[in-house]
């Protein structure tokens, strides 16, 4: 029996739709299978009128489907008319349950019992998975819905949200602004949710804004109500609407069942594919978000390319022109040759497959430097990683003595400290000869570190040695450190977790490499914070020096990573090196003195504890208002709005305060910005001066707003022009007006007034001197003083 079609495409998102359109254009027999009753379900479900961005702008579009930035409706209409025009063979309501077979003879079994036979399969199902539905009588009633497109659509309704995850919490919170909201949780806590969401929902529950139903098993739904069984018996709630957010089965299980392998058990891992998007199952291709390309334009391009690959047509990857341009400065060399030499010469990158390497190089920059040129300076806030392709660099390790330099040759990498700690560069690097460097952006490097074990191992090992060299034993070479370095172990700690506890035997030294820790002691039955140590400092030396039990507890103030060094190895290191012993003793004495000072000062530890509990331990620059000076005039907010298109990025009143110190809701420019973690267009950056800012390529997806634990980002449309100075003098400030609903919203946050010479406008415009921005080191050391 011969196959029905040459290509079966599963999923009609941008990638699948584009593939089908290209197949139709090429006159190849195909079928496009879609589980929903319309194509492009994900884009279809975007909020009505949502503005769709077309990043990355540099990437040329290569698809039979049109695509430019515009409203959701325009984008969908453009695709629809082209799909009709090309005669794409589209089957709606065709959910694929299983795929079996191999190249030339695949069978796709459908949920309705039918099947499709195809020579090749293109899997373009995205990452959303199948939404779980309630398995109770009445689950299909019209008042039960499984997602929420626009919370502002509902008003004055009684709504029951079912679920305990982030989606349920976010829906419940958004709905509670205008409705009476219940949240039904099968358990009695929200431990699965992100900490910020957990806090927000618990706050909403304790203030009574949302009514919880704990340990609730859904029993049945009837028109206008839903019933749960709870430990107190059965309860039926009359409601206008039920929103069940009880998760989705991730597509991974389905994909694995098709025979596709994943490189790691990591939740975020994506299947491994060849440069032609072919998975380990010959004839089964994977494109779109599931293949690691989450942006619409990338997916459209891949849909086109994958069909060309299947047809055996030579097709240059869409990134080839970008790479060629990047490599221009290297002379007349082929793209593939450069890629090959990068992989051969730089051991750190030798474990990358070709696709990863291409992607990395498309995001990386190539620098050709002359002898003596500066790569970066000490205290710069850049956080990319450099690898030496050709030539050599010198590192000025000692600011006091610029002549003391360490040479790194071709193949080596540097800049990993800034990458790991998220802090300022701790050395200046100069070109020691004419050289060629590959600069890999932070985000690309973090992705590689997560995906490729060899990159992680190499990076961590080298970083640990260099950190010991620069923070504990300056001047010692790697041979002398070998015994200690071999015991080095990278440990991660969640915020609040103890590295070690008071009274425990001291068996190791911890060198903080990311985040910061709080040192505390039990005084009068209460844990009192004595000091804080940021990345680049070590803790635990006291017990090792005195051979006594730990005299203090050290906890991660924020999520942190430490290099753990075996105590015995460390002791023998200092025993043989009087200079190092002296410097460790110096740190030890300072700490003793500070602990004594803090112990004596009533309340000082409480202030330190408060600041650390507010996440100051991961900040780089904090707005702090002295409440003894603040007159509540809000000139700070007006100055912020006045210098940022009419939208204030600061909420003075909304922030915790303690001992007359107010931390307003305003960006702290974290060492490892949470907002950066999941930004599809990579629009969030850190400038060399340290400000974290969002550039114009923001697509308004809201990920950063959700990821920020401090609530300092909001989605806003450009504000209408404000009043002129004369009008403000005569009639006062205009109230902040809401922009029209349909204007595209983008993320806005504090950029510390980068580009404005006088510095942060909020501080500059404070009439009484109450508002100050400062680094946590300054803030935390000052708070040791008497209040």
């Amino acid at each position, binding site marked *: 029996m011969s196959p029905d079609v040459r290509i079966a495409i599963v999923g009609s998102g941008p990638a699948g739709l584009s593939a089908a359109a290209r197949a139709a254009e090429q006159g190849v027999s195909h079928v496009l299978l879609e589980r929903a009753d319309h194509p492009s379900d994900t884009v279809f479900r975007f909020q009505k009128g949502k503005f769709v961005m077309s990043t990355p702008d540099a990437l040329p579009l290569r698809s039979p489907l049109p695509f430019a930035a515009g409203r959701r409706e325009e984008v969908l209409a453009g695709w629809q008319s082209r799909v009709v025009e090309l005669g794409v063979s589209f089957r709606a309501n065709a959910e694929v349950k299983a795929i079996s077979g191999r190249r030339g003879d695949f069978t796709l079994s459908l949920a309705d019992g039918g099947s499709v036979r195809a020579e090749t399969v293109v899997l373009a199902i995205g990452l959303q998975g199948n939404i779980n539905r309630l398995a109770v009588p009445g689950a299909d009633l019209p008042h039960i819905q499984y997602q929420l497109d626009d919370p502002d659509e509902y008003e004055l309704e009684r709504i029951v949200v079912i679920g305990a995850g982030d989606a349920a919490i976010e829906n419940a919170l958004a709905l509670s602004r205008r409705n009476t909201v219940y949240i039904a949780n099968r358990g009695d806590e929200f431990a699965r949710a992100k900490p910020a969401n957990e806090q927000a929902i618990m706050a909403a529950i304790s203030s009574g804004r949302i009514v919880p139903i704990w340990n609730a098993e859904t029993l049945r739904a009837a028109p206008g109500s839903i019933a749960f069984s709870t430990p107190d018996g059965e309860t039926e709630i009359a409601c206008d609407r039920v929103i069940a957010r009880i998760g989705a089965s991730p597509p991974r299980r389905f994909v694995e069942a098709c025979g596709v392998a994943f490189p790691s058990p990591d939740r975020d891992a994506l299947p491994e594919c060849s440069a032609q998007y072919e998975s380990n199952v010959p004839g089964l291709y994977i494109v779109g978000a599931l293949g690691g390309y989450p942006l619409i334009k990338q997916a459209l391009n891949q849909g086109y390319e994958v069909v060309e690959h299947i047809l055996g047509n030579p097709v240059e990857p869409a990134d080839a022109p970008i790479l060629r341009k990047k490599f221009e400065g290297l002379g007349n060399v082929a793209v593939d040759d450069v890629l090959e030499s990068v992989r051969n010469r730089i051991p750190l990158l030798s474990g990358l497959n070709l696709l990863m390497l291409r992607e990395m190089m498309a995001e990386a920059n190539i620098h050709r430097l002359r002898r003596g040129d500066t790569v970066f300076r000490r205290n710069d806030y850049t956080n990319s990683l450099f690898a030496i392709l050709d030539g050599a660099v010198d590192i000025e390790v000692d600011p006091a003595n610029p002549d003391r330099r360490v040479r790194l040759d071709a193949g080596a990498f540097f800049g990993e400290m800034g990458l790991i700690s998220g802090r300022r560069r701790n050395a200046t690097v100069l070109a020691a000869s004419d050289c060629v460097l590959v600069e890999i952006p932070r985000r690309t490097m973090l992705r590689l570190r997560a995906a490729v074990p060899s990159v992680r191992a190499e990076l961590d090992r080298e970083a640990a040695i260099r950190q010991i060299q620069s923070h504990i034993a300056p001047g010692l070479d790697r041979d002398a450190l070998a015994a200690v370095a071999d015991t080095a172990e990278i440990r991660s700690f969640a915020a609040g977790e103890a590295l070690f506890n008071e009274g425990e035997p001291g068996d190791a030294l911890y060198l903080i490499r990311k985040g910061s820790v709080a040192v505390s002691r039990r005084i009068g039955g209460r844990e009192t914070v004595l000091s804080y140590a940021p990345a680049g400092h070590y803790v635990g030396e006291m017990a090792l020096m005195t051979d006594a039990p730990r005299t203090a507890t050290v906890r991660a103030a924020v999520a942190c990573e430490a290099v753990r060094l075996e105590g015995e190895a460390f002791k023998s290191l200092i025993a043989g090196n009087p200079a190092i012993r002296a410097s460790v003793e110096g740190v030890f004495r300072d700490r003793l003195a500070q602990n004594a000072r803090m112990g004596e000062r009533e309340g000082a530890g409480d202030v330190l504890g408060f600041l650390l509990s507010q996440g100051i331990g991961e900040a780089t620059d904090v707005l702090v208002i002295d409440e003894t000076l603040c007159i509540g005039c809000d000139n700070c907010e007006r100055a912020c709005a006045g210098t940022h298109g009419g939208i204030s990025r600061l909420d003075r009143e909304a922030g915790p305060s303690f001992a007359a110190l107010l931390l307003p809701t305003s960006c702290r420019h974290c060492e490892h910005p949470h907002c950066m973690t999941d930004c599809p267009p990579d629009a969030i950056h850190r400038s060399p001066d340290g400000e974290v800012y969002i550039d114009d390529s923001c697509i308004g997806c809201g990920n950063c707003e959700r990821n920020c634990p401090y609530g300092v980002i909001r989605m806003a449309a450009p504000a209408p022009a404000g009043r002129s100075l004369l009008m403000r003098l005569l009639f006062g400030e205009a109230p902040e007006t809401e922009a029209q609903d349909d204007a595209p919203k983008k993320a806005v946050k504090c950029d510390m007034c980068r580009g404005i010479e006088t510095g942060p406008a909020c501080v500059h415009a404070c009439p009484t*001197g109450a508002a100050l921005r400062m680094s946590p080191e300054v803030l935390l050391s000052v708070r040791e003083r008497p209040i």
Partner: protein
Amino acid sequence: MSAPVGRVGLHESFLVYRRYRYLKAACLLVLVAAVAYAAHSPAHAPNGGTWLGYALGGASGALVVWLAWFGIRKRTYGAGAAPLRGWLSGHVYLGLALVVVSTLHAGFQMGWNVHTLAWALVMGTVASGLAGVAVYIRYPMLLSASRLGMTVQDLLSQIGEIDRECRAVGLPLGDDVNAVLVRSSEETRVGGSFRRLISGRDPSCPTHAARLFVERLQAGGDDERIRRLHAHLVRKEELLDALRRHVRIAALLKLWLFLHIPLSVGALAAVAAHVFAVFFYW
């Protein structure tokens, strides 16, 4: 180790800006003016028409314009080399110096004319400004303490929440109770009249009346609903108190401006009239 000037050590009040730079400048200005005035012996009594009179008048006029410019500087954001607290520091100290300089300019000659009117308005403006400084020193701490660690929005929404709860709890109770509760939730006002705003009290607060009413009921017998109602109303009064205190302090922090700004506009106009009169009708 002890904290430097100022309580926190890093924050620097406008009064101490750059180690009292403007206080020093103002003292110097006053000193120079006073010495010149003492050394100067004009043919007639000291007045604005001598060379020193013109010099002091010029200085006073320039100061008045510069002091008034503060209103514009305050609303220009992200510009100017000196921070606004520097400007306010200068505004306060040099404004005080103006009292001496302009009085010396007048040579202590007062009368019922436009010249003295200008002087008087300047003095009034400075006096109202001093009241502002006093308010700025005294009230900020009370302002934040008044909010009980919540934002105004939080306070309002908690009050709204309690109102809803009260209505729900009170529903099965008698009409009289419900009437009182409706009044408490619909007619309770924060501020409203000047007196209520500034006193931070409302003697005829419907919530207060409701609490007293419920307390009388409570005396009549133990009822779970009445007890809950009472607890809610006590909490609501507490929140209302906080809100009224907050609104009161926020109002006090702005109240003086309602004198200071009109007086300064008047002073500016009168000074202009004074200068015009001097040069065209003398």
